[in-house]
């Protein structure tokens, strides 16, 4: 089959039996390309779209459908991750349309640092967005990710206003974004959107090997995962601010 250059997806991994990327058992498709360059990025493969495989949406969905029976039992489905899958909207839209045709539950993980038009283009095709709020301070967000958080916050508001199902997440980076000031700002922002829940994604170091194998230098070589005390403190702090935070147990 010939590849349509418009809708071919640059896939750098397909992860079956994903259980932390949305409800139930899922297959996560990782698309290359990202508007951000996060210091703690766990998928540095996404920086190099040329190294990814070009696949048609139909071929990807055929792979995803192999685990259809597990989605049916668990309420799972397809998760599109990255990079940021919404950076190039035509391929992801085609992929989500193909998923719709096959009655797959769809989840999209986005940085939010994409044009509003890209969000609008997939709005009706996505059952659940997962959006990361990495830092509430624009300057520190830029230091951490290479870009201001302005677009991210607008995207959050845009999705909330349109009534999209959004799960907000924050990567928990000890000493980077877990201070009271940031947590307070985060809670106020969520309250403004009438959101009261947050998923905390604890930082881990397992990805550091990937950098070595790609010949890249990780920027947060010394950052440690949150301790039990860190986790407890952050969850507690957020609760006082009216936010119910969930975190995977140690």
């Amino acid at each position, binding site marked *: 089959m010939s590849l349509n250059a418009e809708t071919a997806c640059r896939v750098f991994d397909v*992860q*079956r*039996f994903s259980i932390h990327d949305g409800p139930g*058992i899922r297959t996560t498709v990782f698309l290359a390309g990202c508007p951000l360059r996060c210091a703690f990025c766990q998928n540095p493969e996404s920086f190099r779209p040329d190294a990814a495989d070009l696949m048609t949406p139909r071929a990807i969905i055929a792979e995803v459908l*192999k*685990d259809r029976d597990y989605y*049916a*039992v*668990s309420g799972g489905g397809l998760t599109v991750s990255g990079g940021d899958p919404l950076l190039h909207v035509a391929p992801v839209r085609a992929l989500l349309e193909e998923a719709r045709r096959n009655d797959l539950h769809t989840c999209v993980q986005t940085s939010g640092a994409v044009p509003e038009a890209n969000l609008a283009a997939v709005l009706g095709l996505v059952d659940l967005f997962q959006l990361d709020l990495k830092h509430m301070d624009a300057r520190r967000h830029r230091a951490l990710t290479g870009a201001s958080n302005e677009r991210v916050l607008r995207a959050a508001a845009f999705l909330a206003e349109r009534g999209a199902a959004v799960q907000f997440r924050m990567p928990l980076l000890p000493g980077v974004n877990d201070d009271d000031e940031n947590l307070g700002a985060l809670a106020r922002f969520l309250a403004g959107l009438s959101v009261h829940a947050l998923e905390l994604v604890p930082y881990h170091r397992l990805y550091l090997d990937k950098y070595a194998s790609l010949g890249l230098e990780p920027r947060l070589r010394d950052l440690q995962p949150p301790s039990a005390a860190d986790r407890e403190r952050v969850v507690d702090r957020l609760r006082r601010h009216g936010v119910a935070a969930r975190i995977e147990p140690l």
Partner: protein
Amino acid sequence: MPLHPKNAAQKERLLRAEHWLCMERARFYTEAHRETEGQHPSLCAGRALQRVLENMTIRIEPDELLVGNRASKRIAPPIAPERGDFTFVFEHLFDDLKAFGYRIDPRDERLLFEELIPYWKGKTVRDAKIVALKERGLSSHLDVSPKELRRKLRSFGVRKLLRLVDDGAAEGVGERSVARVRRAVRLASHLPRLARAVRAGAGDNLKGRGRCTDTQAHIVLGHEKVLSLGFSGIREQARARKDRATDDGERAFLDAVEIVCDAMRAFSERFAALARGEAAETSDPARRRELESIAEACGRVPWLPPRSFAEAVQSMWFTQNAAIISYGAGSGITPGRVDQLLHPWFSADVASGALDRAHALRLLEEFVIKLNDNVVIWPNIGGVQLNHLGSDVENITLGGVDAQGDDATSELTSLFIEALGNTNLATTASFRVSKGSPRDYVRQVVAVHRKTNSPAFLNDETAIAALVRDGYSLEDARQYCLVGCVEPSGNGDTYGATGGSKVYFPSALDLVFNRGKTTFFGSQDGVDTGDPAEMRSFDELLAAFYRQLESMVEWVTEATNLRDAIWAERFHNPLISCTIAGCIERAMDMTAGGARYNFGSVGGGGLGTVVDSLAAVRRFVFEEKALTMDELREALATDFRGREGLRRRLASGPRFGNDLQEVDDLARDLVDRFCAMVSARKTFCGGRYKASLISYGLNVYEGALEPATPDGRGAGEPLSNSMSPSNGAERRGPTAVLNSLSRIDQTRIGYGNSLNMRLPLGILRSDKGVESVAHLVRAYFDKGGFHVQFNAADTATLRAAQKDPAAYADLIVRVSGYSAYFTRLGRRIQDDIIGRTELSPCH
């Protein structure tokens, strides 16, 4: 609720107990047998068991609420010398047992070697079997001519051949050190003994490298019958049947049943008297009350039906114990559906207020601990070591549907789950799952893996369909229990001998490449299916493979029938028989065909290894033409020496377990054809054979005799286990593995298959992880899967346990349908378990 302190103390004593060889069962049985020689085999067996039960040492341990022991020491397998498997090990590998830590009283040692072994020489099942196999030309002759020795040396290499006889010695080869010399000396000192053992053991080997053990067994006892009638009622049934007896054989069997029923009464009354005596002596009033209850219960059960939950558990334990004493250890005698069996008494006592949850849990914990009061006796062959607590698998079945097809899980099922978690021993527990099982049930069992690795999941829909296909009524099929590892069998109505006879699929390929010889034995076992180099298509190779497999199935079933005839002629078991539906009705011992349902089994080993091998030949020889059959044969015959590149290439081929249709179809066809070959064969009693795909953890040992295979597996390396993909073959995660296995019609595998999976690292920490594993089980079963079990320990933990066994003494892993203490397994089994693909951290 945590483990009851009295049970914690009992568990501690169990874990610290010494392993002993006790000769009481062997001695009393032999004495009686000497006196009854020439009489009907049922009578000989009945009298012999009576002698044992009336004379063996009995005792009540501190803190016990349930009583009944099997030998003069806490951990001492009842030894049945008439089978010949024990005496073989004693005669040839006694030092190994001692080295492992078994102790024996010097008087017992003299008795064993001066009286018992000489008396049984030539009379045992094993001895008669070896004679019969030779007469019928079914045993494989170990060819040690210079030419064949050279061939073995080329195919296996010195190291791998040495590893067969001494695990440690092989490591020394090639080392330049003092240790090397020391090891060589040690090996040399073992050689004469080992050579004798190999010669004596070789008579046991079937053509085509098949295996047929000396024992049959693997039986679900008729506990339900004993609970409802008591042995008094069974005795009455036998007496009434005698009025209609038509010959002396029937009368002899029924007489024997009456003898063993009386012996069971005498046995329990000995305990009643002992408990009364201890009650009178103790100064602790609480313990006195307990001992008085024990005395009262033992005065009643199993002779009469129980009146309470505690008496019901006690009754089961007596019957279970006596049955294992009667058959000897290593017999896979199964309690069955314990939650179903005990439920009437549980619910009545709870309703009347006589029983609270805490006391029920305490009794169940103690019962579970006692299910681990056993060991089998195995020499350490090639690093295989299975002499751990609980290894004489007394599999308990929980959950599932009742005879009407309704879900039968209950509060008692939950209590058993709690007891398994609390005791954290290597109990083999099988959890039946049906479409009607409560939502939370599977999740609850998955969550128990946080505490222990012992549960397995079984699919009712697949098992029941398989049993009905094999001739069970739907009602009987629904009552199935798991025997041994994962073999579904009727509930107290079947004589099924589910374990013991086996063929290895890779041997069929070996026979093709060597034109009717196996590399290890080297004798002309089977037909010459032609020169592989002349084969022009993959289908031609496949046809030759199936032709060889067909012969192997023929040999193993004929051998098994010869063995079964010996049991029927010489060694009956009226105790177990009288609990099994059909035997009293037909006035016939189970070994002679008395049970309502009769089956035999043939296991198939190394499915993943052979499927990967066939797929590699198809791709690299016939499709890509990257090498010729001749080159492949040469590479296999030299264990890929100097051909590492080729070996890697072959190993990189498509593998079973990755959701690849074309490979999975090979597996599906192989299983279909194997099951058809097996079920076309008739047992000695006229039942049919059923296939299984289980490895009992022996895949390591089985692989030790198998030359290199076309999947890139080196000579002597483990075969794939059970129906699992080969170690390291799976690359696409658990759903891909399950999809591959679901392509096989598992209802055809009458005696079951097992899939051993290691869970993704850390998955059980979160509730989502637990739920997801439960969903995996559900989805697999919706797709027709039969069995799955999980090991939750990660590689780092297992490696640490290898380094510091003492600190990890209670680390339990699933081996193959049963559980074991990791640190007590042989090094090579440990490595094999570590090698089972650990799924990476979940995303």
